[in-house]
């Protein structure tokens, strides 16, 4: 009590000082890079204003299309795996839930590079899977370098980011709501459809965002598991910047990526905040 009376007027004066690091941080790491990306996108190598980079984006139609395709497919697969997983997780005992949580998070403690290298070894022509197939007398399969391998890589790496938000929302669901639904005549299926699903939409939305965004912008997974043959937007950006030193084209494609992500977020947000639409 004592403290409150004292600090209330003081905090108003201090608020600028308290917010300053955050404002500075945002400026340094969010606004300035953004401004630079936009600047590069609309200039040429001599810093002259141009639309050339933007119009050149149309040359990368296939790259853009498969980037969107793969990340959408990966996101859907992740969702289909995660949703029932999270649901059944909440049905187990508190101890079992903690253990499962740990198992889900465990791979996240390992570096993405190391995990992806491990999968390269597993999927290789002479990798574990193919050696096993040959041991059984089959012909080795081409696994590495296929779209399936890239999509698999995305699903594998980003699965925890889908499971966690969905699980969190579901475990917070008030059990008395399910009792009320039963009470009003809903069987198990109707309870899922009419109560659990609509109330878990926020978890699904953030899960989808957290999987789709890194998937569509990845370059590492596609390079390693695609054997360099599958180029996504991220790969193309990386090449422009690292190989051909064309920062302007790289920036233009980055800008496109940002626009795609923003549109996606906007659509998802509309979907989750509109109460009427979700309910069947």
């Amino acid at each position, binding site marked *: 009590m004592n403290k409150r009376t004292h600090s209330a007027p003081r905090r108003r004066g201090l608020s600028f000082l308290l917010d300053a690091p955050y404002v500075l941080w945002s400026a340094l790491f969010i606004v300035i890079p953004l401004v630079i990306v936009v600047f590069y996108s609309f200039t040429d190598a001599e810093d002259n204003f141009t639309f050339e980079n933007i119009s050149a984006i149309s040359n990368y139609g296939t790259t853009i299309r498969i980037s969107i395709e793969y990340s959408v497919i990966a996101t859907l697969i992740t969702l289909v795996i995660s949703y029932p997983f999270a649901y059944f997780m909440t049905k187990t005992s508190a101890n079992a839930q903690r253990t499962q949580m740990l198992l889900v998070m465990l791979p996240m403690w390992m570096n993405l590079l190391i995990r992806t290298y491990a999968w390269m070894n597993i999927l290789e022509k002479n990798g574990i899977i193919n050696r096993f197939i040959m041991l059984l007398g089959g012909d080795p399969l081409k696994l590495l370098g296929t779209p399936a391998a890239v999509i698999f890589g995305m699903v594998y790496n980003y699965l925890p980011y889908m499971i966690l938000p969905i699980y969190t929302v579901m475990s917070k669901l008030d059990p008395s709501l399910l009792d009320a639904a039963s009470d009003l005549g809903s069987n198990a299926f109707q309870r899922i459809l*009419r109560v659990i699903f609509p109330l878990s939409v926020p978890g699904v939305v953030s899960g989808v965002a957290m999987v789709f965004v890194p998937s569509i912008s990845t370059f590492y997974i596609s390079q390693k598991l695609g054997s360099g043959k599958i180029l996504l937007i991220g790969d193309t950006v990386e090449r422009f910047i690292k190989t051909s030193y064309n920062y302007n084209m790289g920036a233009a494609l980055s800008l496109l990526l940002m626009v795609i992500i923003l549109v996606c977020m906007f659509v998802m947000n509309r979907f989750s905040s509109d*109460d009427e639409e979700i309910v069947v």
Partner: protein
Amino acid sequence: MENNIIIELKNISVSFDGEKILDSIDLYIRDKEFVTLLGPSGCGKTTTLRIIGGFLQPEGGEVIFDGKKINGVPAYKRQVNTIFQRYALFPHLNVFDNVAFGLKVRKVPKNVIADKVAEMLELVNLKGFDKRKVSSLSGGQQQRVAIARALAIDPKVLLLDEPLAALDLKLRKDMQNELKNIQQKLGITFIYVTHDQEEALSMSDTIVVMDSGKIQQIGSPTDVYNEPKNAFVADFIGESNILDGVMLRDKFVRFAGADFVCVDSGYSTNENVDVVIRPEDVDVVSPEKAMLRGDVTNVTFKGVYYEIIVDIKGFKWMIQTTRFYEVGQTIGLSIEPNAIHIMKKSEYSGKFGDYSSFSEEYDTLDVNTEEEEDTETQKIDDETEEGLSVE
């Protein structure tokens, strides 16, 4: 009230973690009856409701609905609906869709749903609230939505778990009347849970008094008030002075060192009994003419009457009187035969019905809280002073 029994619990037992929560509950409930389960928190009221609702399977015993055993029938197939302790409204649905929930699950045609929801919202005085979000409603309004939602699917029995506990006193009184009116208007059975004895007395046809997982007494409000079965019931419902007594013979009892004529009989000679005397049934008379004499140790003004504590041979009696007596004054008490209620000894004997905590012990408690309050006030004073100096 009709006489056909709609719900019957036979020898129901439940334990959690090896602890008996319900111990051989036997209860039948008539159609269109307003039955109240009354007891202190933790006595097993909610558990009993959950068994009737189908959310919990008893370890032993039978649940019978309309003559049929329904032990294994899941909640969603039972013709029983529940108003949950904290309403359990669906936060993702508006008022209309909450009330319509049960009808939609049953695939009732849209126009029928619209009519029924409108009818229900009118019944609970929430006309025009259709499109409101449930989170924007007050506690009392949420309560009404919960009632409308449960009644929309025409249940035969409505279970209400402390529905008014979260509301303030004024609203609670209004809602008590409203609920009672709704019950009579629709003619359905209410099984109502409360720990508030006044609420139970004023609303119920039948009260089931529970404690520690056991039914202590079943009866009409006047029965349980006038003829409590044991010291627990006598103490829990209303105020009671409960004294050790000896039944000298039929209609003759000795307690507090005097012999009294009473109306009870059927006890063996010299049987030890508990004697209940309600504070309002004691008459204050002049000490010379009195059956009992004692000193006033505490007086509290209650509006219509004074509540006085009288020390009679070390036992503290509570008495209600319209006249004022001073602390320290010696007064005489007179008790009519029909004001004396005799009960058999029970496990609760000696635990209730002495108001010694009202005088001395209460005084010491008072001193403590007063001290605490003093320091509190001081703190606040300090704060305001410092707060002012900051300004």
